[in-house]
């Protein structure tokens, strides 16, 4: 067996394969595997049902956030319609499951595919529009989709929403918090890995080139428009897939959650987590979901406490306020997000105890 490398004290690479590997050392790879196994084998048994619900929501949000990071962080195309594509995925899964009897895995995959198509259609303005203008165009997409979900009653059942059948996989019921946890986190791990692979391939390089200098990117033979659409497609696939999982998880969906506010939350996740960083997207999802949950618990608590209910009305918008504050603070103090914080912490650990 090949010797494992744990603590490199220099660059001793001898093959190009080593240079394009995801983990520089076996240390990193081993830790990720150990971490995954620990996560998958312990969390569902020690966490209560409410905690599991939060953790599953984080996993689902993280999948969507990775998609958005591919689009915004790597390709530089700002989209305010990510929640809408998430919604399209949720509805696609619900409709396929109820009207056509698709099994769980197929309707979630198809949800990704349908969202990818819709995302590519709403990505078409990116051929001409950039920056703020593209932002506005995708905002229009967000509102159009919201409108359709609400008003195309024949398909979406309108405000009444759709109730999904129980999720089953290989004949097993997986709709409980515990079993859904495994499904979500296996999917998250796979989709993280695929995103990292895409980024280190020619597709990722092309996306980054388009973001940094589209003139030169074209000179390198990259068909810009096609790659922008591809990025919209991949990003919406992630959103739609996450939406499909979420629809099954909550078992009943209505058009309400898929608003511009949710789109902004996804943007907040990737800014706070770290633009152009796949682990960053996951950190951002953890941060935002926990922040969100904490804030709504606090407001709830204040509302229900007799003495404090007088000020309840004034603290109700607190949630939005703290939320905005977190984004602003990150933009000012750590624009590269939690991923950078993590990197700094990790590298000081890696060098420990020889920190010089």
């Amino acid at each position: 067996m090949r010797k494992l490398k744990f603590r490199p004290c220099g660059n001793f690479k001898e093959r190009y394969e080593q240079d394009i590997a995801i983990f520089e050392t076996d240390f990193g790879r081993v830790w990720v595997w150990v971490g995954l196994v620990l996560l998958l084998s312990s969390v569902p048994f020690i966490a209560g049902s409410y905690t599991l619900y939060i953790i599953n929501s984080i996993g689902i949000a993280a999948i969507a956030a990775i998609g958005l990071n591919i689009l915004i962080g790597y390709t530089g195309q700002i989209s305010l319609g990510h929640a809408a594509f998430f919604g399209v995925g949720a509805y696609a899964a619900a409709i396929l499951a109820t009207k056509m009897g698709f099994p769980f895995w197929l309707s979630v995959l198809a949800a990704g595919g349908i969202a990818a198509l819709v995302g590519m259609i709403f990505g078409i303005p990116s051929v001409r529009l950039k920056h703020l203008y593209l932002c506005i165009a995708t905002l229009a997409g967000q509102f159009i989709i919201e409108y359709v979900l609400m008003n195309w009653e024949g398909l979406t059942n309108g405000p009444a929403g759709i109730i999904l059948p129980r999720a089953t996989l290989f004949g097993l019921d997986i709709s409980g918090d515990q079993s859904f946890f495994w499904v979500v986190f296996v999917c998250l791990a796979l989709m993280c890995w695929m995103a990292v692979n895409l980024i280190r391939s020619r597709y990722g390089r092309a996306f980054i080139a388009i973001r940094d200098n589209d003139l030169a990117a074209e000179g390198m033979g990259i068909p810009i428009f096609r790659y922008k659409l591809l990025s919209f497609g991949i990003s919406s696939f992630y959103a739609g897939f996450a939406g499909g999982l979420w629809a099954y998880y909550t078992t009943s969906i209505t058009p309400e959650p898929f608003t511009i506010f949710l789109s902004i939350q996804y943007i907040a996740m990737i800014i706070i987590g770290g633009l152009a960083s796949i682990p960053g997207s996951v950190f951002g999802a953890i941060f935002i979901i926990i922040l969100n949950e904490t804030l709504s618990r606090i407001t709830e608590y204040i509302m229900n406490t007799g003495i404090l209910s007088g000020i309840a009305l004034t603290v109700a918008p607190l949630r939005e306020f703290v939320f905005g504050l977190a984004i602003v603070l990150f933009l000012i103090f750590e624009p590269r997000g939690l991923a950078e914080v993590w990197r700094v912490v990790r590298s000081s650990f890696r060098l420990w105890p020889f920190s010089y």
Partner: protein
Amino acid sequence: MKAFRGQPTIFAAAQPDNRRAELTVEALSLQFGGLVALQNINLNVKTGELLAIIGPNGAGKTSLLNCMTGYYHPQQGRITFNGEAITGLHPHKITERGIGRTFQNIELFPGASVIANLLLARHIHCHYSVGLAALFWPSVKREEVRHRRVVEEIIDFLEIQSIRKKPVGSLPYGLRKRVDLGRALALEPKLLVLDEPFAGMTLEEKEDIVRFLVELNEAWGQTMILVEHDMSVVMSISQRIIVLDFGKKISEGSPEVVQNHPEVIKAYLGDSG
């Protein structure tokens, strides 16, 4: 130690047939509003040739290159490459057909390393699909390794081994120009188009680049168009020179012919005087 120096495989492997680079420009005219940038330009490039295009600042050299590489759309005229009309094609289509260029004001990706910049130029030579890339299939890995090797050969050829991992933005100007040349080479172009590769360089840096260009052209048969506003360097290395002034071709021929052409002398004296 120079593992690849002297025989970069990308050049050695190239069959004479797929190095063919015949470019013709016929009656090309380009206007910006009322400003005539190019007027009735005719020229051709033959395989294996090093053609220089010179002219004072604002003569229209960059505009001509931009027409050839698809960045500008000429109002009149026709450009063909290896017998195929390429007028009005998108830049990426033209790059795919084998014309690779550098930019006058260096359009590198400053945040990315030298290797990453050169790898990007391998795009048109990568053939794997999105699906396989997402799974990092063994064939994808093999291809990536192959491109990485090509990039290393170019790094070796240009003698920039020591900066391969540095972000391009942190490099001094002369080295950035060299990386820019490397990136164009990584495209494996049939026709290499260089827009003022010596601009703003010290004498030593210029000498290095001249050495690379001469080796590329003479030893590896790289067809090249070299745009420059400074006459002196160009005179010694090019086989044929075209002189532009105010968007018109005022002279064409061997260095000696051009050098003594009265209109060329006037254009250059007028420029400096």
